[in-house]
């Protein structure tokens, strides 16, 4: 028990430098802009007084160190600043946008796991045709860019069959069914590629477990192959699958940036793209911060879950 506690503590401590580096990167976004970021942001119609005011508002007229300390201090107090285009509070903006991104990526990962894990098990244990078909799916999922897949989905389901809306969004609390109708295509688009990776990992993990002596022993004991696969092989393949799911969340968050733009979903990904085009640096910073934090937290949770699934990991040898 103490060993497990040590593992959790060590992993939590490891997150601190990662968060620190991430905060530095986000902090530097506006400060590294070549030339005068405030001028770039406000455009050439801004007066000199305007520029000085905004510069002061963003704290850019102080020393770099005190800027960072003030910025982090404000962040920790929940003060994310204001959007320089709409003058809305960025904390409110994020509170509106994050649920959309959470819904999109969460559902996409769920669908990807539902498709990928069973197919991966079939691919590892099935016959030649199952192997070929699943391999075709993997190559397809890896080689087709997700946004193009999304465009083709729109062409088929919204253009030709006209059964789903091509793009747009309705909040879940306004109309749950409508919300899901708008979510189907973006979720499927993201899920197909992810499913291919989860399938591949599940397949290789289960294949390697199935080759171990204890499986032969279980077979000799007369245990049904169904129970061997789901009770033993999949259980042992669990840590690998969870690890890949954790890694893929980063990819999903990246993919969500494109997919939200493609399907006009008002999530954080679309927010960051719009903000970049408007040179709205405070909003860029906050959205990057939000997405990166989710990624880091998910990585942490993944490692802790893997440690719980496979206690050998907590011994330290595997980390």
């Amino acid at each position, binding site marked *: 028990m103490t060993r497990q506690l040590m593992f959790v503590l060590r992993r939590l401590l490891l997150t601190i430098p*990662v968060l620190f580096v*991430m905060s530095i*990167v*986000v902090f530097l*976004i506006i400060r*590294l802009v070549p030339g005068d970021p405030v001028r770039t942001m406000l455009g050439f119609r801004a007066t000199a007084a305007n520029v000085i005011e905004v510069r002061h508002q963003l704290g850019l007229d102080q020393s770099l160190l005190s800027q960072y300390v003030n910025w982090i201090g404000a962040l920790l107090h929940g003060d994310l600043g204001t959007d320089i285009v709409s003058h809305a509070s960025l904390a409110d903006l994020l509170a509106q946008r994050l649920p959309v991104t959470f819904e999109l990526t969460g559902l996409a990962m769920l669908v990807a796991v539902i498709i990928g894990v069973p197919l991966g098990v079939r*691919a590892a244990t099935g016959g030649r045709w199952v*192997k070929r078909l*699943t*391999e075709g799916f*993997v*190559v397809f999922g*890896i*080689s*087709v*860019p997700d*946004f*193009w897949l999304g*465009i*083709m989905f*729109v*062409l088929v389901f919204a*253009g030709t069959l006209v059964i789903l809306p*091509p793009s747009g969004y309705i909040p879940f609390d306004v109309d749950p069914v409508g919300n899901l109708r708008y979510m189907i295509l973006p979720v499927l688009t993201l899920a197909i590629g992810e499913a291919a*990776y989860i399938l*591949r*990992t599940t397949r*290789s*993990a289960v294949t390697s477990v199935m080759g171990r002596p204890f499986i032969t022993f279980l077979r000799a004991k007369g245990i049904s192959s169904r129970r061997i696969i789901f009770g033993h092989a999949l259980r042992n393949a669990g*840590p*690998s*699958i969870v*690890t*890949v799911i*954790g*890694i*893929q969340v*980063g*990819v*999903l*968050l*990246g*993919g969500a*940036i*494109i997919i939200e*733009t*493609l399907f006009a979903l008002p999530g954080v990904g679309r927010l*960051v*793209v719009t*903000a*970049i085009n408007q040179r709205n640096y405070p909003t*860029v910073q906050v959205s*990057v911060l939000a*997405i*990166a934090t989710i*990624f880091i937290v998910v*990585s942490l949770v*993944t*490692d802790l879950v893997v440690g719980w699934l496979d206690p050998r990991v907590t011994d330290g040898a*595997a980390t």
Partner: protein
Amino acid sequence: MARPAGDGRGGNVTLHAPAAPLAVPVARAHPRRISTRFIAVGLAILVVLAIIAIAAPVIAPYDPEAVEVKRVLGEPTLQHPFGSDVLGRDVFSRVLFGLRVSLLVSVSAVLASTALAVPLGVLAGYFGRWVDTTVSRTLDMILVLPAMLLAITFIAILGPGSVVAAIAIAVIYLPILARVMRASTLVVTRNEYVAGARARGGSHLRVIVTHVAPNALGPVIVQASVLSAFALQLEAGLSFLGLGTQPPTPSLGGMLADGRDVLIQAPWVEIFPGLAIVVAVLGFTFLGEGLRRAFDPRGVAE
């Protein structure tokens, strides 16, 4: 070792899933023959695409930026095999030129990244200790952000454009390539011929350049080929968002963004540029998989 995630990187998760190569197409066939088949298919695709990209100005039947008002959203015909786009530009010619830009950006990004990663990885793997710690920990910082987010951060700072996109892609893949080179160097350095070369009085530089680096390069080449496939998708994604290659220069991602609004009336504007990306990605994937089987039997490449 870790497998790349869908963006070609393992992320900063400290535990790694075991290697999961693509399944062997023919069960239990001779491994050598399969790697040759993968390499042959991959190379064939890439050579054709490279010729198309280089010779685009000669092959393209029309100027990719020439506007023909009468042909706006024109259907595919014999004269215009891929149809015409919103401005009446020939999609076939634009795909050829777009392929040229996309391949140039992604391949040069991966090459630049490899050129930086190889010396860094060799130094880290060969000298170990504080050199290794400094190089590895510094590069690990790049893995703090997911690939796409990092690329977008770069573009937020430096402004959109194909050069910035290439730099971003090169930086994103630097830690992976360096890590592979480091791991490969660790294996090679343990060989007795390295100790022998040192014992004969060879300087560190000489030993690295003539013995260690050449023997450690295999997995890095495999990795670079695999990453080119991801780089191509990343470049297309950035251009799709309007953050990569800027119009009027045709790029495959940019074409997909332009045609988004007329998708239903003129699907050919969207189908063909996408297919071009898929074919190119397949080329790199097959080549990488073949090279992996042939030159990286230990599975050092991620």
